[in-house]
């Protein structure tokens, strides 16, 4: 595989970037396969619009999607079969390609929305990696969310919240079911972002329950707002996952979607988190 990034106006071979002492430094050409984090039966999905073999123009998955056309299904590459389906004609985003040749799905902020089947997981740890460009102008939306965010402790969301660009939250048990999570104000982040949100609800301190929230490789927790309660709850439980809306009926996202990895399972080593972050950065063209 050939990887390249734009640096100083020129295309150069991409180097895998790893964290050393808190800094991103060049490493070796990446060979990381995100499917390896599902090797022990973990639940979740890998959605990769850059892989045309995973994109379908119909819900029967018989007609391959084509550039500039709409997409009805994104196959899950994790091996778990949690495909993302855009059922109604008006729910289907358009497949486009940016100036660097990267594929993305454009969500219109009106009716484009997908969902998976119900994903069964009793895990109290989860990791989400999302590559997307927000062009909502600050309107609240849901980019990626576990269905039933208001009702179920342990559910979570990543999106745009109340004139703040990018926020991530997990609903905790106890104390009136408040949240642990983070907001990142619009001026602090670009429109195209790789967001990493890792949650461990077995932790007893609020600040560690959502223990990683990176936006483009930068720890965004310094912008924390609304960190509340604690209490061990199962993440996910028995929920389907929505992409681009809340339950297909509200908070529709205006976004360009470059990919996502969701994993319900034990906390990942920091090195693996960094590798997944770099994988998503390559998909979006973001330099971490």
């Amino acid at each position, binding site marked *: 595989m050939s990887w390249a990034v734009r640096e100083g106006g020129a295309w150069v071979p991409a180097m895998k970037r790893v964290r050393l002492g808190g800094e991103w430094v060049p490493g070796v050409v990446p060979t990381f396969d995100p499917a390896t984090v599902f090797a022990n039966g973990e639940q979740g999905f890998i959605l990769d619009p850059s892989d045309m073999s995973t994109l379908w123009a119909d819900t029967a998955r018989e007609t391959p999607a084509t550039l500039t056309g*709409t997409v009805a299904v994104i196959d899950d590459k994790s091996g778990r079969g949690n495909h993302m389906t855009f059922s*109604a004609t*008006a729910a289907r985003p358009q497949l486009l390609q940016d100036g660097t040749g990267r594929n993305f799905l454009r969500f219109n902020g009106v009716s484009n929305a997908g969902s998976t089947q119900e994903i069964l997981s009793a895990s109290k740890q989860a990791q989400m990696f999302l590559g997307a460009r927000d062009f909502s102008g600050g309107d609240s939306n849901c980019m990626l969310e576990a269905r039933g965010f208001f009702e179920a402790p342990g559910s979570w969301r990543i999106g745009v919240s109340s004139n703040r660009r990018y926020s991530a939250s997990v609903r905790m048990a106890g104390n009136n079911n408040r949240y642990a999570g983070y907001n990142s104000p619009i001026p602090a982040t670009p429109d195209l972002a790789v967001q990493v949100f890792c949650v461990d609800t077995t932790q007893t301190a609020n600040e560690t329950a959502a223990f990683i929230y990176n936006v483009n490789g930068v720890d965004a927790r310094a912008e924390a707002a609304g960190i509340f309660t604690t209490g061990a709850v199962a993440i996910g439980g028995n929920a389907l996952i929505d992409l681009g809306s809340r339950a297909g009926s509200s908070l*529709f996202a205006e976004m360009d979607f470059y990919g996502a990895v969701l994993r319900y399972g034990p906390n990942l080593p920091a090195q693996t988190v960094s590798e997944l972050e770099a994988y998503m950065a390559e998909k979006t063209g973001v330099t971490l």
Partner: protein
Amino acid sequence: MTRIVVTAACDADLVADANQLAMALAFGPEDARTYTGLNWQDGAGRTYAAASWQVVPAWLDLAQSSLVRPAWDVGQIIDMDAAGRAQAALDFWAGDGPVPQARPGVLVAVAGMDGRDALAAMGLEPVPMDPLGEEGGA
């Protein structure tokens, strides 16, 4: 293939009929969920459901012609009477004259603009919504 974006909006009383029309003009029972939440409002605070999708040019004529039950609907799940009511309520704009404004009892459709631009041209704006509800937080 040339495609055109069509965006439509209607008030709550027309949603059920509009979804029958959506099925009649589209490809399967999934299209019964074309118009969902009342996420848009006009200047008077009246709320509307909206949807935006791509069509081939021939669809514009189809949408305004006599309705025929689509071939896929062998089970006759579409309420063609309801679809007919929605079609009768259709105010379709394809570039001539001022864009019709969203209003109760009318299914306003606009061709040739991106979804949110079309809704703005209809006089609609998003209903403010906090993803975390009244509890606030991140």
